[in-house]
């Protein structure tokens, strides 16, 4: 009937061999870490489940072609006037605010899934870009920022000569 190995029955030497202390220590530190994480940012521990409770932030898509770096962000319901795009160094920052529309503030809300509020996202660009040649456009709730790479930062192939 007894399916659990009963450690007490084993000899002293056997016990020393299978010392449980490191395992316990590891388990304890793992637990501590779990609590730390929960109290520092409770919603980050389960990102998907608590996505709805978090502040709103747009998702970004960063792609690169031979000449450009393209950043796309989904921001439905954000007025283009409320979007601010800035570059400093190699960091592109998109910030703004999604405002609640008049329809929402009056009347009785049956379902409320959309999130509102300010947001700020920064991305490290892979190469240097020409600050003069940056275009940003907002269409149907998608912001597209196109940054032209500096000529000096496009990769140059160096031919290896054989002697």
């Amino acid at each position: 009937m007894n399916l659990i190995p009963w450690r007490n029955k084993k000899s002293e030497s056997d016990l020393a061999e299978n010392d449980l202390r490191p395992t316990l220590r590891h388990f304890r530190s793992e637990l501590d870490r779990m609590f730390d994480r929960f109290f520092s940012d409770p919603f980050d521990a389960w990102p998907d489940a608590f996505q709805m409770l978090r502040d709103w932030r747009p998702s970004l898509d960063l792609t690169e072609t031979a000449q450009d770096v393209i950043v796309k962000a989904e921001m439905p319901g954000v007025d283009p006037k409320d979007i601010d795009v800035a570059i400093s160094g190699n960091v592109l920052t998109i910030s703004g605010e999604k405002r609640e529309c008049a329809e929402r503030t009056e009347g009785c809300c049956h379902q409320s899934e959309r999130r509102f509020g300010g947001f700020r996202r920064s991305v490290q660009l892979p190469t240097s870009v020409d600050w003069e040649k940056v275009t940003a456009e907002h269409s149907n709730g998608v912001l597209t920022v196109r940054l032209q790479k500096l000529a000096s930062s496009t990769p140059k192939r160096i031919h290896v000569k054989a002697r």
Partner: protein
Amino acid sequence: MTVSAIEKQEHGELTRREQTRARRTFRPYVDIIEHDAELTVLADMPGTSAEGIDINFENGTLTILGKVDERQSDDADVLSREFAVGDFHRTFQVSEAIDNERISAEYTDGVLVLHLPKAEKAKPRKISVKS
């Protein structure tokens, strides 16, 4: 048609269609607000267009379908990807009596605003009590 098939149809089992789509679909985030005269549905649907949105209201079932064009080009190298592109699809059961003829919708900055005006009989009416 066999007897059991008719029975099933009467119970609504056969009339319910399960949709299958070749592309992946997403459930848009939605707000539903009730006003005295109408129900307003606001849906976050980035990347679609007024022409690409199909709204169907039939027997109290509201279906919203938004076609989204591919916007992640193949020739570009992906450095980071936080969203996927797919169509939007969502279905609601509307218990309120809706005036089908006057349903209207507009699409601005990636948000669909759908107005479902209540039918005359469903509007709240104040009844004054005479003494």
